[in-house]
């Protein structure tokens, strides 16, 4: 019945007119009358007991309304949206602090200037204690972050990560046997995947307005998961979730940092309830280093055992993963997401041990890719090292070990089932486009002139489109805490009485262009013009129960729900149109804003006419209910498994160690594509973040647990001059787990890129004796590696 071709086409975004005119409404742009502002008093120590809090001077300051401490908010209990492993974070530090910047008290004042002045007047007495910052030291467990609790909260094992779900035989004995064979080589590297600050350009912001008359609260928050926030607020305050309206308006970047229910979201609700006025908190950039989650932070040893002709007989990773001081929403699940893709695109025995370890630092949680960039980094770096060791081209080694297209769906070494894939085809598409042989000749010619050019390759698989709601039963979603969504996707499609269309979805986008992409799905299905379709999201009361936007899940899950809802609306509309046109509903086609009888374009009705009939039930055929809308919840049978191949050409300056990224190519496969412009944009940004990890960014702590990189001067996001244009292409291998055949693209760029860059730099320097350099590859580090290699 589909007659338009909006889907798959380049369509300018519906989001943009407001945003390019400064009229987009982010949380800090929404004003309520009589607002108060919050500032937090934060711990200067990474580990201390709190002996007293004296707020008297702060309370004397004109314009200060209240100062709250743990004593005031203890009755709210703990934030339920925390994975119950390890020590849970109280809303405000309760007798002790466990990382620098932990909130100890909350000041509420007339405006943010006065609030900050008052926060500086709150005197807190601390008794500092010993701290554990270094990951290996924490793993050794000689001093505990939380008294009496082992620093290692749990260890994820690849072959047996969940009893009764995945419990495969231990591959280690087989790998050990392979190591002892005469015809095998064993290569091993210890590598750091450093801590990062996600750094959405909009910091988090929260505005709460509690109305005691209605017994309800409205909360505007810069969040990827408004429904989960609503559920958690309801639990904490003992009110039903339908009395909590959480709105995520425009969200200025997410990248995982807004994928939590944060204490501050509850605290401003509390202050608003207590003071009877709207209360706002806007995170400062410096504060974001303490009050928001961070990413990555692994140190691990990767080992490959293989033959001299490229057959990998065993891959092992043993890594310590930094949780920070408290586990929040997905903290311990992030390594598990990495584990899900541990064997990558390969049919190889895989032994994986990921130790989830706490330190006296702020919490880590999902950051774009969430475990998968780390997993891809270790695997691809060690494959590259193995290829160099046996003198094979890294592309050829990969091909020897790939799953073949006719083997799908494949069951992997970590018990996952991957839907569809054709990895060699995808890699060949990249190599052909790049002109791989010529590129290698260009590198070699430059090297002969003393220039240090290097080529890096990475091929990755990611897991996304979460997902099967059964996963929630394992506790990997908020469903385990009495909160709404179990990884469902949802979409409501309603044709209004005037023939325009409203679509509401359960996602929480932060720049992904959902309003445009979803409008394309609906426009394609109904033949209603894009400009007559309005897509709404991010309101916990007005949009259908949703899980939010993260893990590259939205299109595969909520997109499919919307597609199904569209189909149902179309079927009903065909019945109505058939009745109006005195034709069989099977003969009705939709296009150009209405419906007509197949073969007789003159026999037509507009959507307004169909809708008019739908909302006047007496005009409908017998047995047809009034209204023209459908609501669908979709739970896919499996996650989706996008993949891709990335390549970079770099030049290293031998005198300064400066790395110049000359060219970057990527050929990704995310299944079917709805808006190629938006998909390319996701890749551009994703690649930039992986390049940023490889070359620039690192959250650095001193021995006392002070974050030294709290400003954008010390934590250098790449600027325009640091990046090249990206050369993109794609192959299309649709998934069979959803009707759209879409897999997801939000994180692919990040998952494929960091190791591509490091592989390239090591390629440029390998003839100088450099085998590995830990990220970020800043000039001093690269220069030092060159110097060390020469010795």
């Amino acid at each position, binding site marked *: 019945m589909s007659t338009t071709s909006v889907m798959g086409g380049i369509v300018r975004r519906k989001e943009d007119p407001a945003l*390019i005119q400064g009229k987009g409404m982010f949380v800090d742009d929404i004003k309520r009358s009589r607002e108060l502002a919050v500032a937090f008093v934060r711990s200067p120590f990474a580990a201390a007991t709190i002996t007293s809090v004296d707020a008297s001077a702060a309370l004397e300051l004109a314009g200060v309304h209240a100062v709250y401490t743990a004593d005031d908010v203890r009755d709210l209990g703990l934030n339920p949206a925390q994975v119950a492993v390890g020590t849970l974070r109280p809303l405000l530090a309760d007798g002790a602090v466990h990382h620098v910047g932990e909130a100890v008290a909350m000041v509420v004042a007339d405006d943010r200037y006065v609030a900050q002045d008052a926060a500086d007047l709150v005197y807190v007495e601390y008794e500092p204690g010993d701290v554990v910052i270094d990951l290996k030291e924490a793993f050794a467990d000689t001093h505990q972050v939380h008294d009496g609790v082992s620093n290692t909260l749990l260890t994820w094992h690849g072959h047996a990560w969940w009893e009764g779900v995945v419990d495969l035989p231990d591959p280690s004995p087989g790998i050990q046997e392979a190591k002892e064979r005469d015809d095998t080589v064993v290569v091993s590297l210890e590598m750091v995947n450093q801590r990062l600050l996600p750094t959405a350009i909009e910091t988090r912001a929260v505005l709460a307005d509690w109305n005691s008359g209605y017994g309800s609260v409205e909360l505007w928050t810069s969040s990827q998961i408004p429904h989960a926030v609503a559920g958690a607020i309801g639990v904490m305050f003992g009110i039903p979730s339908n009395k909590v309206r959480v709105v995520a308006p425009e969200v200025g970047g997410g990248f995982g940092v807004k994928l939590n229910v944060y204490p501050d979201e509850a605290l401003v609700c509390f202050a608003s309830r207590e003071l009877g006025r709207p209360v706002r908190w806007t995170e400062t950039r410096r504060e974001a280093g303490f009050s928001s989650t961070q990413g990555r932070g692994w140190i691990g040893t990767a080992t490959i055992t293989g033959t001299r002709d490229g057959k990998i007989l065993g891959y092992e990773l043993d890594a310590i993963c930094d949780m920070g001081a408290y586990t929040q929403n997905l903290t311990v699940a992030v390594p598990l997401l990495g584990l899900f893709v541990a064997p990558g695109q390969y049919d190889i025995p895989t032994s994986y041990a990921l130790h989830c370890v706490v330190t006296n630092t702020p919490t880590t949680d999902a950051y774009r890719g969430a475990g998968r960039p780390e997993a891809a980094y270790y695997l691809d770096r060690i494959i590259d090292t193995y290829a160099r060791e046996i003198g094979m081209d890294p592309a050829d080694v990969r091909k020897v070990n790939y799953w073949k297209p006719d083997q799908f769906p494949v069951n992997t070494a970590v018990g996952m089932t991957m839907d569809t894939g054709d990895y060699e085809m995808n890699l060949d598409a990249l190599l052909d486009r790049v002109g791989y042989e010529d590129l290698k000749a260009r590198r070699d010619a430059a090297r002969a002139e003393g220039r240090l050019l290097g080529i890096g390759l990475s091929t990755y698989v990611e897991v996304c489109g979460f997902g099967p709601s059964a996963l929630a039963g394992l506790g990997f979603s908020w469903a385990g805490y009495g909160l709404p969504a179990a990884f469902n996707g949802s979409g409501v499609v309603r044709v209004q009485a005037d023939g325009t269309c409203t679509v509401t979805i359960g996602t929480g986008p932060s720049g992904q262009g959902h309003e445009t992409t979803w409008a394309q799905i609906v426009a394609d299905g109904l033949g209603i013009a894009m400009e007559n379709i309005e897509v709404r999201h991010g309101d916990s009361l007005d949009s259908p129960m949703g899980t939010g936007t993260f893990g590259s899940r939205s299109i595969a899950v909520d997109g499919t729900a919307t597609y199904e809802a569209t189909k149902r609306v179309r079927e009903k509309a065909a019945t109505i149109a058939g009745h109006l046109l005195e034709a069989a509903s099977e003969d009705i086609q939709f296009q150009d804003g209405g419906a007509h009888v197949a073969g007789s374009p003159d026999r037509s009705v507009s959507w307004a006419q169909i809708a008019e009939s739908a909302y006047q039930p007496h005009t409908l055929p017998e047995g047809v209910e009034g209204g023209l809308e459908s609501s669908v919840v979709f739970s896919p049978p499996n996650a989706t498994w996008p993949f891709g191949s990335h390549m970079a050409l770099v030049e290293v300056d031998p005198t300064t160690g400066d790395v110049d990224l000359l060219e970057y190519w990527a050929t990704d496969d995310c299944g079917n594509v709805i808006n190629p412009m938006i998909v390319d*944009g996701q890749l*551009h940004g994703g690649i930039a973040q992986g390049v940023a990890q490889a070359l620039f960014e690192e959250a650095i702590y001193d021995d006392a647990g002070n974050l030294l990189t709290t400003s*954008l001067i010390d934590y250098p996001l790449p*600027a325009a001059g640091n*990046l090249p244009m990206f050369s993109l292409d794609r192959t299309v291998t649709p998934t069979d787990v959803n009707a759209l055949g879409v897999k997801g693209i939000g994180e692919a760029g990040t998952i494929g890129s960091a190791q591509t860059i490091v592989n390239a730099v090591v390629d440029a320097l390998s003839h100088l004796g450099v085998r590995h350099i830990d990220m970020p590859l800043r000039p001093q580090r690269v220069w030092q590696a060159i110097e060390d290699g020469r010795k």
Partner: protein
Amino acid sequence: MEISVSVNGTDHRSDVEPRTLLVHYLREDLGLTGTHIGCDTGYCGACTVIVDGRTVKACTMLAVQADGQSVQTIEGVANGDELHPVQEGFWECHGLQCGFCTPGMIMSSIALLDSNDDPTEEEIRHGIEGNLCRCTGYHNIVRSVQYAGARIRGEEPQGASQEVSS
């Protein structure tokens, strides 16, 4: 302190606390919330406005320093319903995703093209180096500025459809 500032062509007389930052004055006192705040150190550029013809990061300037001057913000860029070529370029070339850095990015791009309407890619990248974007990797921002440059020069610009991968 009493100040008088022209913002987007409208004269304002205001009484501000001396420590009030220009960006807070614009956002809180005048309600012009299109100018955003992304950091504390003048580094991200989300708050970029044009003061007497020069780009200024409005979080590094006090409102009282703008006394007697003329400020242009993102709200004053379009001519009624007619978008500025730079705004059109950002829309056409998918130069924004979350849109938070966009107002500042557009202001810097306008200033760049005011001084050079045919910049090279390198000149564009240098010209917007004071503005950070976390979403786009700058690829489409560069193309947006190129598009706007062509429009300003009266040439036929290249939209997104000319480049997107197949």
